[in-house]
């Protein structure tokens, strides 16, 4: 398969959040600011790419019956690695993302990719696929984070653009749902236009 195509499909057409509606919890949970979204996305991307890599390496030696448990173990190990490394080197970010780092393990995107793509494709394609999906995911989280940060605290990646308070609602839970909802509407409208 054309590697660029393979990579780019995860960005828009099969974007985990905006097209497949997967991995929604971290999407809503951590995106109080763009930077948090970015970090969460990168952590997920790492796990995605690494687990895709390993799964595609071992795909031929793993019997079908124990496929899923084996994949889970692989993914969980990488999640633990991410957890430990973040805790050690970027503790502030780890605190901000909290529960959602261990929860990468149940992000349907990760298992779904391992299962649907990496277990059937070559190592190289699998890494590209994982990176594509991961970056697509990162992109959506960053966009949502940026929107919420902009509306909610009037800042962009921590830079304060307006003085004083903005629409506090958007950094609170309801704002997460509303912002994502209207972003999806926007996506639909763009689709209408291009269709």
């Amino acid at each position: 398969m054309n590697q660029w195509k393979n990579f780019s499909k995860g960005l828009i057409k099969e974007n985990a959040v905006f097209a497949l509606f997967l991995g929604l919890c971290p999407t809503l949970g951590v995106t109080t600011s763009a930077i948090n979204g970015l970090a969460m996305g990168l952590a997920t991307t790492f796990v995605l790419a690494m687990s895709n890599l390993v799964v595609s390496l071992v795909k031929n030696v793993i019997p079908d019956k124990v496929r899923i448990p084996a994949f889970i173990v692989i993914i969980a190990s990488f999640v633990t690695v991410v957890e430990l490394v973040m805790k050690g080197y970027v503790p502030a970010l780890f605190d901000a993302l909290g529960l959602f780092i261990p929860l990468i393990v149940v992000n349907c995107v990760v298992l779904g990719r391992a299962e649907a793509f990496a277990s059937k494709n070559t190592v190289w394609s699998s890494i590209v696929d994982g990176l594509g999906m991961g970056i697509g995911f990162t992109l959506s989280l960053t966009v949502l984070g940026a929107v919420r940060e902009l509306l909610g605290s009037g800042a962009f990646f921590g830079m304060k653009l307006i003085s004083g308070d903005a629409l506090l609602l958007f950094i609170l839970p309801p704002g997460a749902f509303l912002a994502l909802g209207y972003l999806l509407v926007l996506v639909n409208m763009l689709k209408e236009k291009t269709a």
Partner: protein
Amino acid sequence: MNKFIVSPSPHTYTDESVPKLMYGVIISLLPALAVSVWFFGIGMIVVTSVSIASCILFEYLIQRYMMKVKPSHLDGSALITGLLLAFCLPANIPFWMVMIGALAAVGIGKMTFGGLGNNIFNPALVGRVFLFISFPVAMTAWPEAGQWMQYTDAVTGATPLGMMKEGLAFKTVGEIMPEVPSFLHLLSGKMMGSSGEVSALALLVGMLYMMYRKIISWHIPVSILATVFVFTGVLWLANPDRFADPLFHLLTGGLMLGAIFMATDYVTSPMTHKGMIIYGVGIGVVTVLIRTFGAYPEGVQFAILIFNGFTPLINKFVKPKRFGKEVSRG
């Protein structure tokens, strides 16, 4: 020969119509509007006109340019939304905040769902809570009554419920009560609060008018007010130092406004009388819970929104009594 019109029966209709009902509600809101203008003067006038104008304008713009349907901004429902939104804001709130609230009310609360009749949550309350959460400072600074010419520069103070919530941290009810406005003031509306909620009397007059016109039935307002009365009454009897008396609860905050005009919104309330009573009791209970145990001094707005969310379930499970299920031989 004439070209006859053919249609299925019936061939005759009442002359009731949606705009007529809506304007009926508006008429019944007029006494409260008059009282508010009397107490809050220019601020009330600015907030109300901005709110109404923005609601109607947003409804028109969204229908015209985004939904591409025939605008129905003049059917009266946007006017009610605007009026009620203004009624539950402090009269000294900057006008641009009012516009944001109107956008949230009409845009998020109503048009997102497809407009009149489709929304799940009460649009005016969506607007209000949106503002309340977004601008908690501006939304909890209440102008004192009687400042005719002051708008955003009005002197502010606390609402009776706010005083109660604050005071209870270190005082008993008995010590707080002398500070809150007298019973007569609570009834007439000379106190701090959202601009339209202050006068229980004017709101009750509106309720009677709506009942007379058969716009609303008694079920929702009465069940809410009765529940609040009974629940707070029980608490008060149990510990009069910790809990204010039921009359205080009935006459303060947005309870009257909410019970009479907002919980009764057709679109977002249940369809059967039994359902209405469940809904009313639920709103009453949640209101009292929030008022007495929660972080916010007032809970009607949240209570109504929460039960707006439950309304579809109520409608699904509470059915009118069907004819002829049981046979009684008499």
